[in-house]
């Protein structure tokens, strides 16, 4: 099974489709671990279970459904995680709405940009203390207990996904500790994911009827996200860097 998993994320999207066709058939052969495998991804993990490498959380964003001027995702993120919601140069933004326009064709797209939860995250590579870390299930986090605030990860991130907390904070969300002098970024709302909920941004996007964001387990071939990734052409931002991002975009 683990071999299959490895293949799932190493294989390019096109190959992945073929693989999964075969994989679905082969699954029967390897079913003893398979039961556990699907069990975990379908049910979310139990509170006492550690994050499992059999799961890789990911996100698929359909840019064609992302509405111009809508920032429900960013607002929901700020509410859930206790961010100020302000957008000054020294304020934290874990998710932001980007507007892009093709310089040749004039084609315009809207999309949310957030931590891409790379499989090979440069922020984790460069962090001197190991505060920047990737959980077994692919969620990239900052352990604020050992973050010294050097900001090297912010230099290294290709997506400008990280923010530095520039001033003392009070009244944090008890579930989302964050404070002065540390670097932070999107956590995929790990506190929600761990109790089997989707990230706040995804929920808000669906609630507003846009349905532009999809969250799920990339390693579960039967999850909606894996199926969508099998069916549509999707892109990684800065795919040239080979980071194998957990967030994929459709329509650009």
């Amino acid at each position, binding site marked *: 099974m683990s071999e299959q998993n490895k293949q799932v994320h190493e294989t390019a999207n096109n190959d992945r489709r073929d693989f999964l066709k075969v994989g679905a058939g082969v699954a029967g052969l390897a079913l003893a671990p398979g039961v556990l495998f699907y*069990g975990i991804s*379908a049910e979310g993990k139990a509170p006492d*279970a*550690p994050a499992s490498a059999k799961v890789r959380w990911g996100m698929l964003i359909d840019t064609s459904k992302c509405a111009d001027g809508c920032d429900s995702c960013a607002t929901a993120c700020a509410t859930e995680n206790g961010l100020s919601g302000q957008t000054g140069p020294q304020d934290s933004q874990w998710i932001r709405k980007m507007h892009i326009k093709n310089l040749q064709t004039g084609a315009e797209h809207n999309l949310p940009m957030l931590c891409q939860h790379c499989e090979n995250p440069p922020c984790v590579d460069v962090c001197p203390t190991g505060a920047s870390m990737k959980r077994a299930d692919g969620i990239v986090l900052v352990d604020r207990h050992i973050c010294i605030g050097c900001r090297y990860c912010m230099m290294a991130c290709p997506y400008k996904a990280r923010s530095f907390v520039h001033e003392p904070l009070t009244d944090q969300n008890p579930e989302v*500790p964050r404070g002065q002098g540390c670097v932070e970024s999107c956590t995929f709302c790990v506190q929600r994911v761990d109790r089997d909920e*989707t990230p706040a941004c995804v929920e808000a996007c669906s609630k507003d009827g846009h349905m532009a964001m999809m969250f799920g387990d990339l390693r*579960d071939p039967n999850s*909606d996200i894996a199926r969508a990734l099998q069916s549509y052409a999707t892109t990684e931002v800065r795919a040239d860097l080979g980071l194998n991002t957990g967030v994929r975009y459709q329509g650009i």
Partner: protein
Amino acid sequence: MTGMARLGHWLRLAALLGASALLVAQTPNAAAGVNKPEPTIAQAKGDHCIRDDEFMMRHHPDLLKHQRDDTMHRGIRSGEFSLKRCMECHSSNSNGVAKTDCDTCHAFAAVKLDCWDCHAKKPAKAKAVPAAASQPSPMMTSVQPGGQMQ
């Protein structure tokens, strides 16, 4: 001669250090009988902590640290020794001022806490009903365990 003098100097220094170490070691016992000021655990709700006082007093830093790494790095959220759980009994909010027993006791012991730089001094909001009632999003995954087998 200078060698001897130097040796004597070191011996005296060692004796001094030894004596002061003894003094320090003796202090708690000596003070035990004295009526010394003690921090009051004012905010604590309920009858008792999750372990006996002696144990908690001695081990809470290690317990918290262990739990913190389990939760932070491995996503294990069921542990008993989380700061959030402490806050359920040991914090209070009067007139918008959050107070904790942690602060009282640490002020007494003169041990600086920097937990509050990031952590809230209040218990987590009660969730409607955890896990069971939370609708797994239709997007998250659609297959039930074992579903694949058919």
